[in-house]
């Protein structure tokens, strides 16, 4: 069974249609990426999955369960967490508190362990655990946002533009970590502007154009596709 199945979802902001029928699947253990230019609907797809902007029509199945009309907190409790575009850390909370918020819905006792795991992935966060998130650099906040999403112990991790506005050197670091997280067993759906990196780390990819899926294939093959090269890789 596929972990996530989107079937022809259409999402609107007011009267503006952002998604014009997106269908895609994510298999367990996979890392899937959505690429496309700004306004193509990548972030909206993630927002639809998380329930922030529910689709008006279409269905979203997560492990066979319909989640398209669920409230965000119920979706999180099923095991989908998101690191949103622009990081959105809680600026006046410390790093440790931010991580705690990630585990907000969890009642189990393994939270400590998971925090150690995040600190292992991002040692920088442990150094700054007492610091207010708002005073950290963009790259550090990005690590925090990903770490915070991991604290929910998700089955499916949604990452929105983890490389946006970050120094190239940190982009490398973060992508190494994303690959590591995926290797440790978390399924990942990634939205990325920077197609080079995204296609490098993912197994499969969908190319979105103006709210529709224009193309989908294995990442390696898409990298060879001349159209994709021209439009998204800047070859």
């Amino acid at each position, binding site marked *: 069974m596929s972990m996530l199945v989107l079937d022809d979802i259409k999402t609107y*902001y*007011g*009267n*503006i249609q952002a998604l014009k029928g997106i269908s895609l699947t994510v298999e367990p253990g996979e890392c899937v990426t959505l690429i496309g*230019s*700004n*306004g193509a609907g990548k*972030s*909206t797809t993630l*927002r639809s999955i998380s329930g*922030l*902007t529910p689709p008006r029509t279409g269905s979203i199945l997560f492990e066979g369960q319909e989640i398209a009309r669920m409230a965000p907190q119920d979706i999180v409790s099923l095991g989908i967490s998101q690191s949103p*575009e*622009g*990081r*959105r850390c809680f*600026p006046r909370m410390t790093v440790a508190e931010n991580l705690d918020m990630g585990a907000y819905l969890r009642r189990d006792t393994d939270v400590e362990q998971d925090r150690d795991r995040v600190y292992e992935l991002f040692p920088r966060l442990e150094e700054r655990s007492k610091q207010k998130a*708002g*005073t*950290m*650099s*963009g*790259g550090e*906040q990005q690590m925090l946002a990903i770490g915070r999403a991991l604290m929910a112990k998700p089955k499916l991790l949604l990452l929105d533009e983890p490389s*946006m*506005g*970050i*120094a*190239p*050197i*940190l*982009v*490398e670091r973060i992508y190494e970590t994303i690959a590591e997280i995926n290797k440790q067993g978390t399924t990942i759906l990634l939205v990325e*502007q920077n197609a080079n990196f995204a296609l490098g780390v993912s197994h499969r990819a969908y190319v979105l154009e103006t709210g529709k899926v224009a193309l989908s294939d294995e990442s390696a093959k898409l990298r060879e596709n001349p159209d994709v090269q*021209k*439009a*998204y*890789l*800047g070859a």
Partner: protein
Amino acid sequence: MTSAMGNRNVKIAIFLAGLFVVAILPLFFNESSGFIDDCTLALAYICMALGLNIIVGFAGLLDLGYVAFFAIGAYTMGWFASGFYADADIHLFVGEFASSIPGIHVNFLIVLVIAAALTTLAGIIIGLPTLRLRGDYIAIVTLAFGEIIHRIAINGDEVKIAEGFPLTNGRQGITPVDKIDLPFLEPFTSLNLRPWYWVALALALFVLFVNFRLRDSRLGRAWIALREDEVAAISMGIPAVKTKLLAYGTGAAFGGMSGAFLASYLNTVNADQFAFSFSIFVLAMVILGGLGSIWGGGRGRGRADVHQLPPHPRRAQRRAEQGRARIRPLRAVVRHLRLPARDHDGPQTRRPDTGAAPPDGARTGHRRGRHRARPGGAMTDSSPDLILDARDVSKVFGGLTAVGGVDFAIPRGGIVSLIGPNGAGKTTFFNMLTGLYKPTTGAILFDGAPITGGRPDKIMARGIARTFQNIRLFGTMSARENVMVGEHARMRAGLFGSVLRTPRVRREERHVSDKAAEELAYVGLAANTFDQLAINLAYGDQRRVEIARALASDPKLLLLDEPTAGMNPQESDELTALMHRLRDERGLTILLIEHDMKVVMGVSEYITVLDHGEKIAEGLPDEVRADNRVIEAYLGKGAMHE
């Protein structure tokens, strides 16, 4: 402005017909009927609502103390046209009865002008400290002023301007107040309400007319721009406080005029009338009528949609550490610069007559080439090749150094990039150049003159224009209007010119509108998109409109903050080409903040790298790319192979 002529004529016809009906309405009712009474009161309140609309609707200043202006207008009438100051004996153009009562009695028309003047003055006095504040704080402080004025009204009987001349008559009220006495007409009476109605109607129409004229004017655009995005607006050369004060003063004047009318009509000025609930009452009228729209509804249609769009990612917090290190002497570096060759002998055709044209001659010495000869002769400046020279600039935010002692120079006609990790202080640096932030230390010279800590609009007027990291267009304006806002600093139309719409103002509007279209075409927008709401344009086009808006001010230096963010490689290439064209065809100097290394390396002639608020490297692209510190702090090893 955008509607077709035929459509417009129909609208005018409907308006005139409606006006006729409204004007003859009282003839169908008994001359002292309650209905006319209600209508007259309603018209007076409409005057106030339209006045407040300029403040809240156009300029977006949430004023909860509008009653203050009602009060001041009413008291003006009480002071100058009643028997209140019985020790005085001044009678100016007033009727028989008023002449027989001791006190100051001045004709209504004169009082109306005084009321407008006094309330405008009060608006400015209240506005000066208030309008610097943000959003809801303006609301609470205006509310406070409203209450203070209310209190002064209540206790004014204890405040003696001179013996026998208390400020107000407190809760006892000033009663009765002189009736309106217009030249060539019978004095008004309390029993025949028709003349009162017509005066109220005339006032309301006047205020309505001013509302309409101002909406589509330089000032109206500036107000809406400030409302939509204050930072973007002041970066486009709109002086924030002055422009807001104009809105506040104008709105106040209408409140005052209406207040003076009401004092005469209600025959009393009583402190209890000026309570907070009246401010809310007028505000509710404005809101129910549709904010910012004159008729109510209509223009604001795009707003609801805009509100539901996901918010922009927040600007990341800047962070930097103490310490400063100079890399190498600035002057030495400048000599290494490659500078573009351009032919500037031809006349500059693109400059409008309205703007202060930059000294074109200053650029003639520039030639492409690494070993450029110093321009001689006329130039006496020791560094004539620098359009911007910043020295030892730093910025500290509450103990955290965002930028620490950076020297930075841009040669005239160059394309220069500023790169560095997020939070390195690049945008902070931009904001200091454009005046949004005041440097903690250091000095910035632009075109040979210091601009350190100057106001954004003044710096803009001298020739620095910018775009923003997250697109900051004015959402409820069309693309063309957005660009017209960019020309604000080059325009002259003032409050009265805009209302009267003099031939000069008309010419200017036409000229600016044409020029906006020209700029939009230049950056590559299709003509059919010019009059669409900016928020509805495609992402890439929005970026272009933003650049066109910056170009509209005829800058000498253009600052682009991550212009390719969110663009695909194809669009990025087009933008790179546009940058070259801007430099070559229009002689612009460009400073770029960019993360996309392909763009940076492709377009820059010179690169400066910031990290933690310090300059860690600068030089030609190849030098920077090979610099170990840059690789370590920013680029990473992978970038070397791209």
